[in-house]
């Protein structure tokens, strides 16, 4: 067997780390996946190789997140290695060592938002975002698409790229009205500078292969074609699987493999997925084979043939309509809108709950409406574990106005004692400082 696309698998199961011993995010999570991949001889296939992760530096984290009180208080080594795994996956592809890569690492990251006070949805650090920012700082890549196929809405990734028109975020997930974290409705389309580069497809419970592939065909692929990304990343959560214990979908390993083939992502990153015996070994095998361009048609779960996973007609009808609505809203985003004049701040008030660490956060997020760049970002945040802190981000390729405004905000903040901690992300000068 020879892979059509060479594939680098960055496999790091963290066999000595758990949130706690009975938690779904525990040592055992990738054990059977490793057994399956080893038994199938996947790493012997010509063109599929295993790689060791890197470890992310504090700069890598601070380039992406505002961490309060600081990076070391909100991360452990496992988070830095997991994020380092995605960085490794990225460099393998960007340096053309392989055609594609798959970061099969844990813990996951897509619920980690721009500001981090602790863990939410099993995530501390957004490993895809850390990777994307690493890529944009080190390689001449402009437009990146992240397609999130985890069953839970990737509210963290959405939050980080809400104002970024160069990163398209598309999430297919179980409707937020029926599952954590509750967000991801179709009207969530991005901030004033980046309208239409956040797309949500909230699928109804019991969606099967048919529904997922329909959403791919009718929404994901057309929007990708329109956006023309330089790089496609798949947040490859596996909890849409019919056997997942904490969700209600009917997706199969074969369906995941087919989706992977259709999406044709450059880099995939494991996210959630907690049916560690019944789903992960087969889904990961399917994704790996599909990414490598190999035949996956014989991959299925032990109980697959006994299951009736045909999608109900009602659901199919609903998804059809949903796809039309999402596309309609996406098209509407292209029309010019003048809600706010450039040079003014658009302000959002957010309340965020960290379920894993039981933290409550209050945020006031201000983005400069800007036609030249992504706009300077200011976040005032306080939580049950931190007094008022401030994050200021001068975006990549910031215009002079936003750059100046960023430092004005910083000077004002540092001259008073309103904030316990202030973090500056200055992407123009690659400066990431905590004051």
């Amino acid at each position, binding site marked *: 067997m020879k892979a059509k696309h060479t594939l680098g698998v960055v496999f790091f199961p963290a066999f000595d780390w758990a949130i706690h011993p*009975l938690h779904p995010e525990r040592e055992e999570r990738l054990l059977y996946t490793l057994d399956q991949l080893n038994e199938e001889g996947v790493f012997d296939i010509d063109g599929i190789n295993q790689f060791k992760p890197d470890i992310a530096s504090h700069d890598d984290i601070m380039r992406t997140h505002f961490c309060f009180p600081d990076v070391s208080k909100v991360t452990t080594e496992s988070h830095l*290695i997991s994020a380092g795994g995605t960085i490794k996956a990225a460099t393998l592809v960007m340096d053309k060592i392989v055609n594609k890569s798959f970061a099969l690492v844990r813990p996951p990251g897509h619920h980690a938002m721009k500001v981090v006070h602790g863990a939410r949805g099993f995530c501390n650090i957004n490993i895809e975002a850390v990777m994307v920012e690493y890529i944009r700082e080190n390689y001449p890549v402009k437009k990146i698409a992240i397609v999130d196929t985890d069953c839970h809405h990737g509210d963290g990734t959405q939050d980080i790229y809400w104002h970024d028109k160069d990163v398209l975020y598309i999430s297919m997930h179980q409707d937020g009205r029926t599952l954590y974290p509750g967000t991801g409705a179709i009207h969530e389309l991005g901030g004033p500078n980046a309208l239409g580069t956040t797309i949500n497809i909230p699928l109804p419970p019991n969606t099967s292969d048919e529904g997922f592939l329909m959403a791919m065909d009718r929404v994901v692929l057309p929007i990708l074609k329109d956006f023309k990304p330089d790089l496609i990343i798949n947040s490859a959560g596996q909890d849409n699987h019919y056997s997942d214990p904490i969700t209600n979908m009917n997706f199969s390993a074969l369906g995941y493999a087919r989706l992977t083939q259709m999406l044709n992502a450059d880099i995939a990153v494991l996210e959630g997925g907690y049916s560690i015996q019944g789903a992960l070994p087969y889904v990961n095998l399917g994704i790996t084979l599909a990414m490598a361009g190999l035949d996956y048609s014989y991959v299925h779960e032990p109980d697959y043939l006994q299951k009736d996973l045909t999608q109900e007609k009602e659901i199919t009808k609903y998804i059809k309509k949903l796809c039309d609505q999402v596309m309609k809203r996406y098209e509407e985003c292209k029309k010019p809108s003048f809600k706010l004049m450039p040079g003014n701040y658009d302000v959002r008030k957010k309340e965020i709950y960290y379920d894993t660490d039981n933290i409550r956060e209050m945020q006031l997020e201000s983005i400069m409406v800007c036609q030249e760049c992504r706009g300077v970002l200011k976040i005032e945040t306080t939580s049950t574990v931190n007094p008022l802190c401030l994050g200021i981000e001068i975006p990549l390729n910031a215009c002079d106005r936003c750059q100046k405004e960023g430092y004005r905000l910083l000077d004002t903040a540092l001259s008073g004692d309103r904030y316990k901690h202030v973090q500056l992300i200055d992407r123009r000068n690659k400066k990431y400082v905590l004051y």
Partner: protein
Amino acid sequence: MYLGLDVGGTHTDAVIIDKNGVIAQTKVVTTHHNLLECINHALQAVLKSIEPSHIKRVNLSTTLTTNAIIENKCEEVGVFVSGGPGINPLHHAIGNYFFLIDGQIDHRGTEITLLNNSQLEKAIKKCRKKDIRVFAVVSKFSTRNPVHEQYIAQKLPHADFISVGHTLSGNLNFPRRIATAYYNAAVWRLYNTFSHAIEESLRELGAIAPVNILKADGGTIPLPVSRTIPVESILSGPAASVIGTMALCNITHDAVMLDIGGTSCDIAMFADGAPLIEKDGIQLNGRNTLVRSLKTKSIGIGGDSAIQVEGISVTAGPRRLGMSMAEGGSNPTIIDALNVLGTIHFKDTSRSQEGLQALEKKHGIQAHEIAQQAITYALDIIYNEVMAMIDEVNSRPVYTIHEFLKGKVLKPKTIYLIGGPAKTLANNIAQRFGWNVIVPQHCEVANAIGAAVARTTVDIEVFADTQRCRLLVPNLNVNIRIPYDYTLDNAIDDATNYMMQYLESIGVDEREREIEILQAYSFNMVEGFETTGKNIRVHCQVKPGILHQCKDILKL
């Protein structure tokens, strides 16, 4: 007294070692068409002035099975494979009689679907019709549950030999298990005929010592044991040199071994003095196997590598066009280049001069310059390969945070150089690497010495599942019930005990039963939010090394 014999590609070497060191050694030309012939010659020569009955142990490293597989002189094997879903098992097809039998076992060892009896009967009938006498039987995840392999095996009562997948290795890797079981059956008859002949020869010579066979992992197995696992005898040559180097030198740190021969250079690595082992197993004839082996790499640079000039670029190897001109060959080689540079004065140096001057005339580059460039080229290749191998070892995947942060990093600063041209290249290599280079005495027969002093090695995987109250040691055919409160410590104790019993049963001396635990993991298995049991894996070995009695007699 210990007798070691290594059949190599060109030469067959034999040595006898006692407490005073090497007391006899011989080198004869390998007779590929009939290995018994050169083995007998070597044995006779080395035993000429020795009383054969004083020999305590005979260790043999042969290319018999390797050659049979490479040259496709194997017996037809009926291969019965039950794969179930996953990668299409037809990709793993091997041999002319490959049969897929439906049936499925999952990663936990649960039997998902029964074997398809009618397919099995049909396959058996076909084999009987074609008079197939040896079989390989392999199922996916048989190291988690061997029931399908056992079932098929008992359906073949008339077979001369059945190679059963899980008995060959405890590792997971279905395609490798298929190839390994196939090769094992394919060379079984040939190997057994050969081993009887060897025993007879030794008896005729008056040597009554037990005979052991060298394996690719640098350890031996008693010949009677090897009769059912002949595949373990493949590719033992490089390992013989590695063990020989260990016997001749006091290696305690990270180091590199270079075995430079006429056509090739074998590279091996030591971590804290122990030879590095390949993760899964050795590759043979383009197929990966589960045959455990030392981590070695062979590159096409040796003393007889032919020098080639194209335009202004001078290269050497991987081709060999006969011996050096100094030895009467007709093409200038690395040895000739060394002669021209005055590094060595080997045999007829004027012939070397002639050879390189001819190249000078043809290409307009000074002979001296060509010689220099050829050596630089060869050294660069060796240097780059060594560095790439170190890099590869250091970037091996690890699966725990502890290993990631605290894991061993290989940083060798010493090279042990053996093989024919070793001495002549020592200075150049030392310069190129900037490392310490050591050329041990007897380095030209290090391979046979390695064979002579290698200890018996075994490695086992223990797999325990306390939810199902099962413990398996696949390659020792252990499959027993355990209590649900069984722990990792129990598993480590059991692994050690099973290993001890096995070593005793195959007659390994008490002092050689040094068992090392390589890996010991215990995972809590959780279903819903309740712990349902433990999933325990222990990997242990007797690591490759030198027989106790031979430990210090040969060291520098």
